């Protein structure tokens, strides 16, 4: 069995699960500055309070899984992204404790609202910047990172950061439009409209820039016959963005689903661009993999546990389905 390929796909799945699940959690934090009412902020937070912890666990699976399966990639990427990773972790600390602290604090609710919003925005921006820097490639020589501490900042990575922040905000808005109603829902729709345009512009810029960053990236998409097979991805994405633009105005449940689909296609495009590199531009996942007996040992666990995890995660979502009532969970 090709354990290396199975694991690179499983890690990719874990990262995608994180991006979408914690994406809408972080998105709600990103939307916080647009809603000043304490009561509504409480509702927004309660829309994710019972599930955010499970969502964030995918981040640990992505990181821990990469450490176990592709240790060289984990080691190189974490070293190259030292500053954005630490900043992201600290942001997640503040934003994570805000879930509990916001409701415990008597006089400082605003402080923890700020921590929640700022933590979410900074964490999302760092993830986006790392995504951009990752696509641009890591400066490696003889298996060691030889770049600088600030290599991850570039115009391209800033564009990616912006794309991720607005993308998460749209996911969050999509989730909330399902979970709340009344004036708050109307307000979210109003915020989501310009976000759709911003996201479309960001996606277009990032996609086109990516194909110019590295001749190999451009070839992957524009060479024949690839272009015929791959053309549906951008075309469907454009179609989805138009549909999203209309759904935002009147639909309740489809906004989240369409945004999710756009994320999926973007992620697929990202994977197609970079495959088989796990540390672009040179290290392929096969060069960075753990020995097969480590990969097969873990695969047993993944085969047993992943379906169970998906099962009880679905159950938790089912228990807390429907609109947030005024009382809230807290």
């Amino acid at each position, binding site marked *: 069995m090709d354990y290396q390929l199975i694991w690179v796909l499983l890690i990719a799945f874990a990262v995608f699960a994180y991006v979408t699940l914690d994406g809408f959690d972080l998105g709600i934090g990103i939307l916080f500055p647009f809603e000043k009412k304490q009561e509504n902020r409480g509702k927004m937070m309660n829309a994710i309070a019972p599930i955010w912890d499970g969502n964030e666990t995918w981040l640990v699976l992505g990181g821990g899984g990469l450490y176990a399966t592709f240790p060289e990639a*984990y*080691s190189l990427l974490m070293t190259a992204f030292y500053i954005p990773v630490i900043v992201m972790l600290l942001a997640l600390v503040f934003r994570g404790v805000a879930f*509990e602290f916001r409701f*415990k604090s008597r006089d400082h609710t605003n402080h923890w609202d700020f921590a929640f919003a700022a933590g979410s925005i900074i964490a999302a921006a760092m993830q986006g910047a790392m995504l951009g820097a990752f696509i641009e490639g890591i400066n490696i020589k003889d298996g060691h990172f030889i770049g600088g501490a600030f290599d991850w900042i570039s115009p391209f990575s800033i564009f990616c950061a912006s794309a991720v922040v607005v993308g998460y905000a749209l996911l969050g808005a999509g989730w909330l439009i399902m979970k709340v109603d009344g004036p708050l829902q109307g307000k979210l729709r109003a915020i989501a409209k310009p976000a759709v345009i911003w996201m479309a512009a960001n996606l277009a810029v990032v996609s086109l820039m990516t194909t110019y960053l590295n001749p190999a990236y451009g070839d992957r998409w524009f060479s024949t016959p690839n272009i015929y097979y791959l053309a549906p991805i951008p075309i469907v994405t454009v179609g989805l963005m138009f549909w999203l633009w209309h759904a935002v105005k009147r639909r309740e449940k489809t906004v989240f689903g369409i945004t999710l689909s756009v994320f999926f296609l973007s992620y697929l495009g990202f994977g197609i661009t970079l495959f088989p590199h796990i540390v672009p531009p040179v290290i392929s996942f096969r060069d960075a993999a753990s020995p097969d007996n480590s990969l097969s040992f873990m695969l047993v666990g993944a085969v047993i546990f*992943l379906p169970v995890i998906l099962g*009880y995660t679905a159950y938790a979502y089912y228990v807390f389905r429907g609109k947030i009532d005024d009382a809230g969970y807290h």
Partner: protein
Amino acid sequence: MLDPEILARVQFAFTMAFHIIFPSLTIGLASFLLVLEAMWLRTGNDTYLSLYKFWIKIFALAFGMGVVSGIVMSYQFGTNWGPFSKLSGPVIGPLMAYEVLSAFFLEAGFLGVMLFGLNKVGPKLHITATAMVAVGTLFSAFWILSANSWMQTPAGYAIETGRIVVESWFDVVFNPSFPYRLAHMVLAAYLTTAFVVAGVGAWHLLRNRENVAARIMFSMAMWLITIFAPLQIIAGDMHGLNTLEHQPAKIAAMEGHFETSKGSTPLILFGWPDMAAGKTKYAVEIPYLGSIILTHTLDGEIRGLNEFAPEDRPNATILFWSFRIMVGLGTLMLLIAVGSLWARHRKTLFDCKWLHRFALIMGPSGFIAILAGWVTTEVGRQPWVIYGIMRTADAGSPVSPVAIAGSLAAFFVAYAIVFGVGTAYILRAMRQDPRHAHIDPHEIYRADHANVVDHIDTPKH
């Protein structure tokens, strides 16, 4: 000027020390909550429900802080210890992956139902959720201690062309020190929680000895301490024998023995191990006791630190004292267990003020003992990061010392704020009268307009 290795070690120790505190409490509290909920469902006595609601608020705060400080740990292996990650990934990585798959998701998946779901799912499913969270905390301890133990006593591997290749996963998971370390740590977590519960119960009893909820929690905690404190001493002793076998330099440093002795080794009660001089100064000794405790014989050999190459010696000054702090607290724990039995025998468990004051002072003792024990075992592993395989000096990432100093400062500030405030909230939750923890939160909300929180709504009987 700034040594990146020292900075990275300080950062790891600092973030780890903060992290270890919260799981120690949540491992024990999850099991305690399960017992409380089971007692409530069995007896129908609402005081157990009040206690459940009282402690779940504290659990939720501690759990949240444990989660966020834990995520930091899972990425710090890579950011600061790249070469270590690259080497150890194929062995320790899978153990951590199993921890995430079997424990973290289980805890996180059912935590929401446990905190917010009683009214939505009913008591039967709710207690299942509580049980899943409790089991998850224990699975988590299993895997992370297996990984930690493997770094102390590696087994089941071969080194091929500079990589570690596993030969037997069973030997990796159940490496020589693992069973002892797991027992020692889980007992420590239970004892830590029992002392926190006892301290809170004692505080409420000192205010009002008729407080029924305080009586129940104090009595339950004292039973736990009475059972677990002696068990912990036995587990600690067995763990010590195991360490003597696999890491003799650590034992020598813990005991302040610089010279090898065969038989009639004294126990150095106090003293100042001087690494430079190669001897323990101002030693206060008890003859023969060292042999008896360390080898369970009168003529066992105990190798002294001077027998090991200077570059292979752990720091005896730190180990000697961290070990004594842990053992001293363990002795006090046994003492309070005996005291509680005496008070129970005289039927004065709820009236005995000195016992309550003693319990109150001992409230945080478990945390201190865990930190001291953790320093003992981890500093005792030095200068190795993986014992005998990789030195700590070779394990650090090539990150500029300025970046590490900056991140270390950021961690100091952030953790001081977050965990300072979190601890304050926990202490405030502890001061609430546990008898009133089941009152409908919305009534309180209307009454004083404070944003009072109750995690689960009052069930309908």
